[in-house]
């Protein structure tokens, strides 16, 4: 009887040890994959968007009481470059103050006309379209832009502003 109990306990501890080993292996693999993907992402950026031609575009939503974005379209020099459809989760993230990295483009040094069109609904549920076109100058340094969708309290509406560095 004691032998059976001992065997049972031994088997149970073996199973437990095996589970723990699998857990550790899984965690180790997850760590390795995270490191790998971080390196991959960095390599991708270096390969596809060198700093000298990189133009990074960001979108933020300030309050978002009068406007909820559904889609966005970015054009540079009249050519549509980036299009994006928002999910509910992404809009929620924007409302929480997050900054959307819309994407990186490769632009030659010089002046460029940047146009952003944001389609969405206002606080009454009506379809709205916000747009902005501005000329930005790209130097040999990376161009960082931020489109701000801000509420316009006086008109109970929203508008887009552009900041760039």
């Amino acid at each position, binding site marked *: 009887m004691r032998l059976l109990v001992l065997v049972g306990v031994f088997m149970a501890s073996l199973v437990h040890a095996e589970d723990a080993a*699998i*857990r550790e*292996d*899984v*965690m180790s*693999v*997850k*760590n*390795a*994959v*995270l490191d*790998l*993907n*971080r*390196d*991959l*992402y*960095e*390599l*991708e*950026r*270096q*390969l596809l968007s*060198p*700093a*000298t*031609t*990189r133009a*990074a575009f*960001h979108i*933020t939503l300030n309050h978002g009481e009068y406007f909820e974005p559904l889609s966005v379209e970015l054009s540079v020099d009249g050519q549509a470059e980036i299009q994006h459809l928002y*999910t509910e*989760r*992404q809009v*929620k*993230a*924007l409302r*929480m*103050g*997050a*900054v*959307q*990295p819309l994407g990186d483009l490769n632009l030659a040094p010089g002046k460029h006309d940047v146009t952003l069109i944001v389609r969405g609904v206002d606080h009454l549920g009506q379809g709205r379209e916000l747009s902005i076109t501005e000329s930005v100058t790209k130097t*040999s*340094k*990376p161009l*960082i832009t*931020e489109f701000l969708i801000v509420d316009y309290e006086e008109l109970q509406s929203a508008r887009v502003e552009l900041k760039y*560095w």
Partner: protein
Amino acid sequence: MRLILLLLLLPLSAWAEPEYTLKSAFEAASQVSGQGAASSSDEAADGSDSSSAVSGGETDALDFDLEELGVADDAEQRLLRGNFYYTYLTGDYYRTLYYLNAWQALIGAEGAPELEADVMRAAVYLSLGLEDEAESIFYDVFQRGGMASGDAWYFLAQRLFSSGEYERAEQSARNALSAVPAVSGRHDQELRAILVGSISEQDRVDEARDAMSGLRDKSIWAGYARYNLILAMIRQNYKSRVLEATVDEAIYYLPDTDEGVALRDRILLISGIAAMEREKHAMANRYFRDVTLESVFSPPALLHYGWNLLAEWRYEDAIQPWRILQRMYDEYHPAVVESYLAVPHTLELIDAVNQAVLAYERIEDSLSVMVDELKTVNQQASLGEWLGEWRNDNATENWGWQRQALSDLPDSQITRFAQGLLDDEVFVSELAVLHDLDRIQADLTRAARDMALWEQVLIERREHLASLGGEAVLDALEDKQMDVLRGILSVQDRLLDEDEKVFAYASSADEARIERLRNVVPAVTYLQKVATPTRELWPYKERWRRMRGLQLWEIYEHQPQRKWDTERDHMILRSETDQLFKQLENTRTSLMWADSTWRGFPEQVTAIQGRIVEAQARVAELQAAQEAHLTTLAQTHLTELDERLTLYLAQTRLALARLYDDSLQKNFGDDDYDGEPETPAAKPAPKKAEKPESGPESEQESEQESEQELGNTTESADSLDSDVNDSADVSGSNAEVAASEGNQDSDAAVSSGVGE
């Protein structure tokens, strides 16, 4: 004048040594490319910055430096922080860690006691199931101290609470509430609910009640907090009045939404079970009666409602909830299965023998079918297909914290049997591990494909650059540039010589005119000699001399202006040629750096491909092990279910045999027994309890057989006597077991989704 020209010539002396410039640039290039493509590609096209990149010799973690661009520090931090939170909230975990590293590098470089990135890193690791890393960061954060925003602590508290780390979740929640900047308003109520829930899970009821003060009564989070508080009170056997008041308060304030209704049912269910265990049956009835029929908590509530009524000796009433349960819900639902034997057992208690027999017979049929089906599906191959279908259905889900409810298994017969298994936290967490491995494998496959494409891109870039023949074109252009340079030098020499000329800066027309004027007087003198003039010619000669003088005077008069114009034109020419030279130099630099668009990358790509292959092999191995583990778990569950259903089937058959036996015994005891046993139901006795039949061929044979049957039945009744008693006991105990199992099921169901 010479000084000016020498000054102008100074840059030209540099042109005379182009080899030196190019050589040094190549050396710089080789040094930078040796340090990694990160810095080389960034600085590539900017020749002026290449030297600084070399001297720096470091690859910055940030790909772009906003500080250099004049971006305010807070703007830089804000963008990186915002990018991190965006990717965190939308589940893009690769970028999340990338932005987090960039952000942490930035705030770390400033030496600020900023903990937010560490706190969020712990939250990310915890979300991805990397508990060990999260734990080490967590301890480090508490040891170091420092500042982090309320939102960061809130995210960490959320993840810790989900992971069941209640003590740390409480610490994080308290930090979030006292943090500066404070937690945002949209998270405040949830955070307080997490705080109350964490304290409740540690069974500190009084403290949890105090922590309730910050919650708004009508918030859904107050409902979740009260639910956890009620659970703690039940565990602690807290004062009944307070518990009942808390329950009443909780269900009163809950909002009239789907979520509110489900939570209300949940609270009523656990409160009812708790009241039942305390033998407060009237109160338990009230709780169970108020549960709606619209939530997942309705089946266990109906089951327990029946048991509670049974405990009050209200047999006929007890049958009703079970009948509703069996009519409204799937016959394979664990609660429905548990209610199968309860109905005929109760019918027996109220002496409704015929009804009980009919119910037992129906249940026997159902259980027989279920057991047969269960044996069919409980095979390795079937379970493998079942898991495979589930894996395909969840192929679009992310891994980590953004994955959705993974326990939504495919609509199949196995899932119907495995409903109880899906409430098992161990099984669901193992499923999550397999899902994570599947997603990781898919990501690795995609990364391997990307690497192959990038490899091709690099080859094409290299070939394209080679096909341009930039080196030869540049060499030809440099030859032309040298010709131009020589031309300019000769022009400069001519300019230097010009000052020494009599007619400096005179035009060729002026010189020709002077020459012609100089020849006029000798020509007149010659004409005088060959012919006799009719008049005096010296005034003419004097006039031409004066004309020449005038011409010379005009030349000298315009000399400064012409000299100025010439020097200006020369300056402009120098400026243009300078620009041309600069452009040529930039082109040379660009050509040189063009190699950086592919140089160094193939090695990196190859290294990463090796890592990918290695990771794929490890993940495949773990996938196989995890799949086998899950199949074993499912098989074990189905085997246990099989055993339980077989036990119920045996009990059903024993109960039927007992009822028939009782009926026979009763008929034997009757004085007016006429030899034809009165069966309690129209249907003959179940075949399983019968012996092999031989069809009567005549009445006599039939009577003999009838007598024989009766004798056999009597014998079987004797032999089964003890079994029947056991069966009755088992049936009774089965009811208790079923009740307790139902409790366990419902408890599991209740505790599995706390705070979700």
